[in-house]
């Protein structure tokens, strides 16, 4: 038993040594600037919408709609996947990434029909985000309520 554990440990070290690592600094830098640009574009859109006379809440909602639309469009045009390859978290984290995570399986699973394919599989990637995001906001809301 011990011999096998030793073999596994030794092999794990060999693998660690030989496997190429990605350039963390370069990847973080790329995520930073692309994520920043996406958010800046979002802010720009927000300002433009406000200039049409919408209040803060309405402008936020409309900005979200526009960004989600852009995420969907770029996914459908086969551009978002290339952006994601370059930017990683920079394009996954903003709401455009959320749109991409719902539209890409919707495209993929169309072959299995609209109910079991598109309808249910659309949530394979985004599902956890929705579940745990909502749960977190409920918890925060409760804490906020009691702290008030």
């Amino acid at each position, binding site marked *: 038993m011990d011999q096998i554990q030793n073999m596994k440990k030794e092999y794990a070290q*060999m693998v660690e040594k*030989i496997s190429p690592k990605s350039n963390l600094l370069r990847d973080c830098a790329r995520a930073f600037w692309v994520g920043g640009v996406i958010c800046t574009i979002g802010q720009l859109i927000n300002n433009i919408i406000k200039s049409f006379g919408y209040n803060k809440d309405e402008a936020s909602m409309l900005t979200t709609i526009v960004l989600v639309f852009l995420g969907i469009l770029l996914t*459908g045009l086969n551009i978002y996947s290339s952006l994601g390859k370059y930017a990683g978290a920079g394009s996954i984290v903003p709401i455009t990434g959320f749109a991409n995570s719902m539209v890409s399986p919707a495209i*993929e699973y169309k*072959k299995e029909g609209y109910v079991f394919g598109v309808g249910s599989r659309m949530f394979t*990637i985004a599902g956890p985000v929705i579940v745990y995001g909502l749960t977190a906001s409920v918890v925060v809301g409760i804490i906020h309520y009691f702290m008030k």
Partner: protein
Amino acid sequence: MAKHIGKQSIKFDLPPSIISAASTVGSKEGKGPLGTYFDVVLQDPLWGEDSWEKAESKLVQKTIERVIQKANLTPEDIQYIFAGDLLNQLTASTFGLRSFDIPFFGLFGACSTMGESMALGAMTIDGGFANYVVAEASSHFCGSEKQFRFPLELGTQRPLTASWTVTGSGAVILGKNGPGPYITYITPGKIIDLGIKDPMNMGAAMAPAAADTIINHFQDTGRTPKDYDLIITGDLGSVGKELALELVKKSGYDIESIFSDCGVEIFDAATQDTHAGGSGCGCSAVTFAGYLYKEMQNNKWSRILFIPTGALMSPGSTQQGESIPSIAHAVAIENKWA
């Protein structure tokens, strides 16, 4: 009759001949370093069908039709088909083969399936159970991503240790008589698991299985690296290849000068963005049926050891925290036998 030798190998007294080979690949493989060796290169990954799965079935069907034609045979001459793929319940193979009236053995060895099909096919011929058999394996990049990984349009990154599933089907026909090359020995592999859990580094998961089969092959047959012109694994990729080399060296066999890997040969990592290399059942199958078979006929090598390698996991097993057991089947192929 064949003889069982050593722990796990078989020596064929009447080595079956590989009578013909055929390969169909996708456009990425066609643009790779081995592009000119393949019979058909598809530009449309769907091949006119309406799903990846149906496209892969068409790949299987057309490739097997072609390999039978190339041997100047008809489907009536073939006694058995040994074939497999990566899709759930082997649907690519079963749906692709339902139009043939030929008894079918469906195989699952993950990416080692070509080794498994050729080994079982050779045993069937040498045992006198058939005159001609087909051995085939296939995979499809899009179908495989859909089943094992992520939707194609998802904006994620792949680590440098990840591999690229080959879109392709490779088939051979084995027969009792023929001009060769011949299958002289097989060393079917055992399931080997050294605890690697990362499905994005399958080369590391499979290297111990490849090493174990290579070492046992040498020990069972009494052969050494000097007896081969080429030892080529299925899809260890650049990372797995280095690891396997080290593991085999530790057991006293230095195969560095003659060692290669189909996953490393089939794509140009520098220009095709395939990271560690090609993978999938199709990788070893098309590399053999296209490149290795043709160059053996050109006498570039006269004795090779072909070792397709497979990672035996499912999407669910890795999610449950399991490691990735692997397997490698060795097939010795020679232009002449004594």
